[in-house]
């Protein structure tokens, strides 16, 4: 996609393990424009976090990355450590599943916010302090002045995640990556945090990537969705198009496996049997074939490539895609 703020081009992440090479990300292409939200969905271990760490250039030391990560006109894979560090604080921000990963337990909330702000923006202490309280107010934290003197462990999980978001937003990033930002939180708090992210994203015209294993989380809150399986993107489409017509059997199965409120109790769930393949033992054919109920013919011998459906925006990797439904 031209003109995108971020575009990941043919990214491959390999990790050496005692069992052999583990391909965590397998030839992935993605793009997200300013002011847009991309959802990345998939089961545990499918490579969502590795992909986001490839974007942030925060891969484990032993990892090998190939491909390009174009952000705001430059290829991040070629930048120096110093340039990257500046960029990560300023234009590229991240919120992790566990807010304690992003927060420093021995520093007060105030110190963390003020230091981040002063490191990247030219503000004096009073201005940085002022901005910190504004940010805490923006993320819905009552009595922000008092919070500045508190330590992360003195806050609840939901409050901590708000603070982590405030720190991430403090330098007006162009792109925010939220890696399962609400998985550890309650439904009510989860809804609040997702609302908060959506509001700030709109207000700042920021690009955002939301990573989750719950299709319910991305449905109402993203412009585009990429579904990952075993390191690859297996379906990608504008959100409404995806939910209107899923083409990839895996996407359909993932949605079907979610418990639904409109189904009577004790109805057996259409679970996906088995587990994803061992990533150190890649399959020759479609990685989903051992679990796929449509698997036939070349599914087990040949890899389906990501290719367009009716529109060039809806891509899927499947030899026997789900046919267009007859609309009522």
């Amino acid at each position, binding site marked *: 996609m031209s003109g995108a703020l971020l575009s990941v081009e043919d990214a491959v992440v390999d990790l050496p393990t005692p069992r052999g090479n583990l391909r965590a990300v397998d030839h992935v292409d993605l793009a997200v424009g300013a002011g847009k939200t991309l959802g990345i969905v998939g089961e545990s271990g499918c490579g969502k976090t590795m992909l986001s760490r490839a974007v942030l250039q925060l891969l484990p030391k032993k990892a090998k990355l190939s491909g390009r990560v174009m952000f705001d006109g430059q290829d991040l894979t070629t930048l120096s450590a110093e340039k990257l560090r500046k960029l990560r604080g300023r234009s590229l921000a991240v919120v992790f599943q566990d807010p304690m990963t992003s927060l420093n337990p021995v520093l007060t909330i105030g110190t963390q916010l003020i230091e981040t702000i002063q490191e990247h923006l030219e503000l004096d202490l009073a201005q940085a302090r002022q901005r910190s309280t504004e940010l805490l107010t923006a993320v819905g934290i009552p009595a922000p002045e008092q919070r500045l003197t508190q330590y992360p462990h003195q806050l609840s999980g939901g409050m901590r995640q708000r603070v982590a978001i405030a720190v991430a937003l403090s330098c007006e990033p162009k792109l925010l990556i939220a890696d399962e930002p609400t998985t550890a939180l309650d439904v009510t708090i989860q809804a609040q945090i997702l609302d908060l992210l959506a509001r700030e994203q709109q207000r700042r015209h920021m690009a955002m990537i939301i990573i989750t294993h719950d299709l319910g989380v991305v449905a109402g809150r993203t412009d585009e969705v990429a579904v990952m399986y075993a390191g690859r993107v297996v379906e990608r489409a504008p959100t409404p198009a995806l939910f209107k017509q899923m083409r990839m059997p895996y996407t359909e199965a993932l949605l079907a496996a979610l418990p639904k409120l409109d189904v009577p*109790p004790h109805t057996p769930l259409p679970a996906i049997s088995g587990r994803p393949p061992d990533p150190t033992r890649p399959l020759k054919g479609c990685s989903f074939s051992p679990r796929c109920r449509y698997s036939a013919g070349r599914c087990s011998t040949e890899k389906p490539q990501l290719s367009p459906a009716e529109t060039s925006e809806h891509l899927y990797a499947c030899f026997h895609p789900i046919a267009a439904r007859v609309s009522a």
Partner: protein
Amino acid sequence: MMLQAASDPLMKVENLVVEFSVGGKTIHAVSDVSLEIARGETLGLVGESGCGKSTLGRAVLQLRQAVSGKVLFDGHDLTTLKGEALRRMRRRVQLIFQDPIASLNPRRRIGDIVAEPLVIAGVKDFEERRRRVSEALSAVGLDPALVSGRLPHEFSGGQCQRICIARSLVLNPEFVICDEPVSALDVSIRAQILNLLEEMKARYGLTLLFIAHDLAVVKAVSDRVAVMYLGRLCEVGPSEQLFARPAHPYTALLIEAIPVPDPDVRPTQSVPVGEPPSPIAPPSGCRFRTRCPRADARCASEVPELRVVAPGQFAACHHPLI
């Protein structure tokens, strides 16, 4: 207080109070909770983190001492039983934990882990123990020959939860408390484990208390649902009825917050900002009043009692939605 005209309650909790003392302060974890669970029924228990769900479950099992109240299991008050009598009763009640990996001893083999309850219960015959372990492992879809000799770290989260379920079934219990059994698992494995629990329930004729904070998960397996907030029960009712017509504003809030996998359903923005107040100093009157859109003066002064709002449905609210 009768919560349901259950003809044959297997478990009956009456006015249960559990408190913790931390640094001279009292945490009101479970306050005056009464519940009935009929034989063969699954009762779902939902509520936010910290509202007292696990504490209630543990107090039912006598793993936590209650300040006051009764726990009647099959007519016997567990809170007054001691020694061998309590042990005999407890064998009929089992617990499955939230974190499957952490609840398995990493240095013991799967066969020994699953056999542990039998050893504790005094089953001395080795052959009998092996037979019962094999039965339980097969029931949860694991091959006893393949898994018995292996260690927990060789298994995925979903498989560890299967092992925990096998361990809880090996004594043929009648009543099982499942404390967030699928919260740590991702969507596809979650569906497998929920189906497995349903199968086990039918096969062993179990009665379940199913604790979770995900309402859709609770609805999938429960005949009735109880909603808790800050140590108190807000609402109890038949699952479908409760989800279709919640009476308590907190139940309605929980239902509204569930993410719906449909892009045409825009997420509602009505969720009130704010967090549950501290269980050390819970609000006077109705504990939900600091977040409730319907709260008035009466809510601050008077504790709402659970009362009937529809057949089989009870809510503790001065201004119920139905």
